């Protein structure tokens, strides 16, 4: 089995590829202008920020970066394409001949090109709408060679690619979609627009089985474009193609050639490679490190900062705890305190984790306002009227009230104790 992927990635720029409209706006057709609507007389102007990000992606995927890049028109008629051609790259794409290293194998990258996104088509029952907000959004298309040999490699490649993109700054949750090219024999079949690893694996599994069955029945696989149906987990024909499409590519001469040398930056170091190194260095299972850092910048930075200060195993344990509790933005000092606590045998819940971190620099998002706290205190005192009597004998009863009130809340227990004390004394 041979698999090649063409992955489209939305670049995290402020504005579109050829005009100054914002990308990703909710209200339909509100982020449009003469350029991205393709009005006669308008002209594209290249967004340099998109070039910089595309260069960084290319460098991180070990591509040769072309010093000069140019653009072409890919001509086809479709209502989502305002000019009826897409501005993309052909002969001088931003990156060429790279690779992504997965376990024990290199998946070669054929090319990485910058191109504009078409508008989005919204199909309703009796009519179709077009939203041009997406028209002209900056994409890169990452094309691999057909080097992926099985499902496991597909998963590894996809994870590795996404991790690299994540570290470049792409929002991989929603902005990555792939075309899967798969062949078990001669002819390849293209499955368009598959999102997420589970769907990719599903599509690959189904296609491999289907093509094998076609061949076993004595027929041959047809060159065609298919789509993946998530519900039935099958692929179905969307277009038969007798030959390769004819797009009549032509230079986009409203744009010139652009230098890329100004955009050259340090490539992203694969998190997988870092995991491998640290696993050897600190004698910790590689998978545990991968799990912590493949898609977690904060974790990577905390580990990097603390790796010669604290035990690696404890740090990983703390990162797992933080992740479970969904706590972000931990300072290295707070992290250090947590690691020491865990080392001493603590097994803190979310509240306790936050207690350890408190006073350092955690966001206020979880704090509760005072009037609410006061009414909570009053409720507790109302419910158990004996508390104020007990207080006279043992002021430590305050701690019981604090415990009741602070359940599930991110509050300063010391300050709360003061409040409780005041409330009880007011009652006496």
């Amino acid at each position, binding site marked *: 089995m041979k698999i090649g992927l063409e992955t489209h990635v939305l670049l995290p720029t402020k504005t579109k590829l050829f005009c100054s409209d914002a990308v990703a706006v909710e209200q339909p057709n509100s982020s449009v202008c*003469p350029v991205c*609507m*393709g*009005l*006669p*007389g*308008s*002209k*594209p*102007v*290249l967004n340099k920020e998109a070039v910089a990000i595309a260069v960084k992606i290319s460098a991180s995927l070990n591509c040769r970066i072309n010093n000069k890049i140019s653009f072409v*028109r890919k*001509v086809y*008629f*479709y*209502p989502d394409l*305002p*000019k*009826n*051609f897409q501005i993309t790259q052909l002969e001088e794409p931003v990156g060429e001949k790279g690779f992504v290293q997965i376990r024990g194998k290199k998946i070669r990258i054929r090319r990485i090109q910058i191109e504009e996104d078409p508008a989005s088509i919204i199909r309703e029952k009796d*009519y179709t709408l077009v939203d041009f907000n997406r028209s002209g959004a900056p994409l890169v298309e990452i094309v691999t060679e057909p080097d992926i040999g099985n499902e496991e490699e597909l998963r590894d490649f996809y994870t590795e690619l996404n991790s690299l993109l994540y570290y470049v700054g792409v929002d991989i949750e929603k902005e990555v979609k792939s075309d899967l090219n798969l062949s078990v024999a001669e002819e390849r079949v293209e499955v368009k627009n598959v999102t997420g690893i589970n769907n990719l694996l599903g599509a690959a599994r189904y296609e491999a089985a289907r093509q094998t069955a076609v061949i076993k029945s004595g027929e041959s696989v047809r060159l065609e474009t298919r789509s993946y149906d998530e519900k039935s987990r099958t692929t179905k024909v969307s277009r038969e193609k007798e030959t*390769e499409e*004819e797009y*009549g*590519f*032509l*230079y*986009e*001469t*409203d*744009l*010139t050639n652009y230098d890329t040398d100004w955009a050259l930056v340090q490539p992203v170091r694969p998190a997988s490679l870092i995991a491998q190194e640290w696993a050897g260095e600190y004698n910790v299972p590689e998978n545990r490190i991968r799990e912590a850092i493949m898609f977690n910048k904060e974790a990577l930075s905390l580990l990097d900062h603390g790796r010669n200060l604290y035990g690696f195993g404890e740090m990983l344990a703390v990162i797992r705890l933080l992740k479970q509790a969904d706590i972000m933005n931990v300072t290295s000092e707070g992290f250090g305190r947590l690691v020491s606590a865990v080392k001493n045998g603590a097994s803190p819940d979310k509240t306790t984790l936050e207690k350890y971190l408190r006073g350092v620099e955690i966001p206020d998002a979880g704090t509760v306002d005072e009037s609410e706290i006061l009414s909570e205190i009053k409720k507790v005192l109302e419910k158990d009227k004996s508390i104020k009597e007990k207080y006279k004998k043992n002021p430590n009863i305050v701690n019981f009230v604090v415990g009741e009130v602070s359940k599930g809340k991110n509050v300063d227990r010391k300050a709360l104790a003061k409040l409780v004390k005041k409330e009880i004394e007011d009652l006496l």
Partner: protein
Amino acid sequence: MTSSISKFVRSEKREGYYDRLVTDLTGLNDRLNAFSVIDGNMKVGFPLSVKDNLCVKGFECTASSKILRGYIPPFSATVVERALNAGFSFLGKTRMDEFGFGTFGINNDKPVRNPFDERRVAGGSSAGSAVATSIMKYHVSLAESTGGSISAPAAFCGVVGFTPTYGLLSRYGLIDYANSLDKVGVMGRSSQDVRYLFDKVKGYDRRDSTSVDSALKSRETKNLMIVEELLDKVEDRVKTRFLGFLDRLKGNGYSVESVSAKDLEHSIAAYYIISMAEASTNLAKYCGFKYGLKVDDFTKGYNDFFSEARASFGAEAKRRILLGTFVRGKSVRSRYYSRATKIRRAVINRLKALTKKGLLISPTMPVLTPTFEEVEKLTPVQNYAMDILTVPPNLAGMPHVSFPYDYLNGLPLGAQAVSDHFDDYTLLDFVSEWEKGFRYEFKYNLGDL
């Protein structure tokens, strides 16, 4: 010699001057068809007309195509904006060959007529701009040339038509014909008027990535060259007059050298292949969907919907879309498009080498202004061959200027001078020198003070 623009601006105008200009113009335009839109509200400033492929905010812009009927651009072309900021006043949109596809100004709804003889063509594609310049005493026009669309009508209408170096005038707001060849330019009744407007609108524009700011040179040169192979294409009666013109230039102290440049003959084929290839992609966007002509029936399938809208292109536009699409095809690309780009490179090198030594000079058109009947008899290929003298500098993006040098049977004869890239002022200075001993003749002088 000062430009008529400064004279006009300083002068006291009679009351109702502009209203009368608009009335007279509207009357004459009914016969000549130079304007598709006349703005009757103009009250101040030096009258400026704009070729109908340049957007003027709020005014219908169709590039004389049915498919764009009703398109009102929400923005103005940069050159228009700059001209208006410099005090020019918008007078109207001038008729052209549809999308610039033509040499005679007849590929549109109403053929543009020559003011010197209304049975004859005005030349194209900037037909209306040339006619407007030829009939109004105080007026300049923003026009555009892809393969000779300024020179040809300027020659037939007896005005100065200046096509600057590619990129000097922003193309933002220009409805594209062939992006790598399209050049905005200027028409006027003297080199001074032309230069005045050119200076106000030239230079880099951040909205057009191919626009440039460049220090323009003016070299004093007395060296003129004629290309033998090109002169051979010129009909005898025109050639005879042109040789007489050269004699007068020699008398004025110029040297005229005859040079051979056989490869320039291929420029017509290369030009039409490149321009049609680019045009066929530019015209893809017109599909009756969002602006201009609208197809009402949204229940149609996409292909039927697009086909219905695109049936409204004129015959020449359809021919260029078909040929242009063909030459871009994967299987024939190397045979046509790629070879054409090599020829373009060779033509640029050849012309650069020649213009280092001086100015190239030739008649602008190989024939005397033809009648409508004569033009109708031409096959498409004969028609394209009329551009043999104007295409080489256009293909090379080099500045060139057409100006009248003589009159034959009451019809103006135009000569074209070509200089090196960014040597634009050299050309205007050359014409200015010639004007010192030449009397322009015009049939109409609407708006005389």
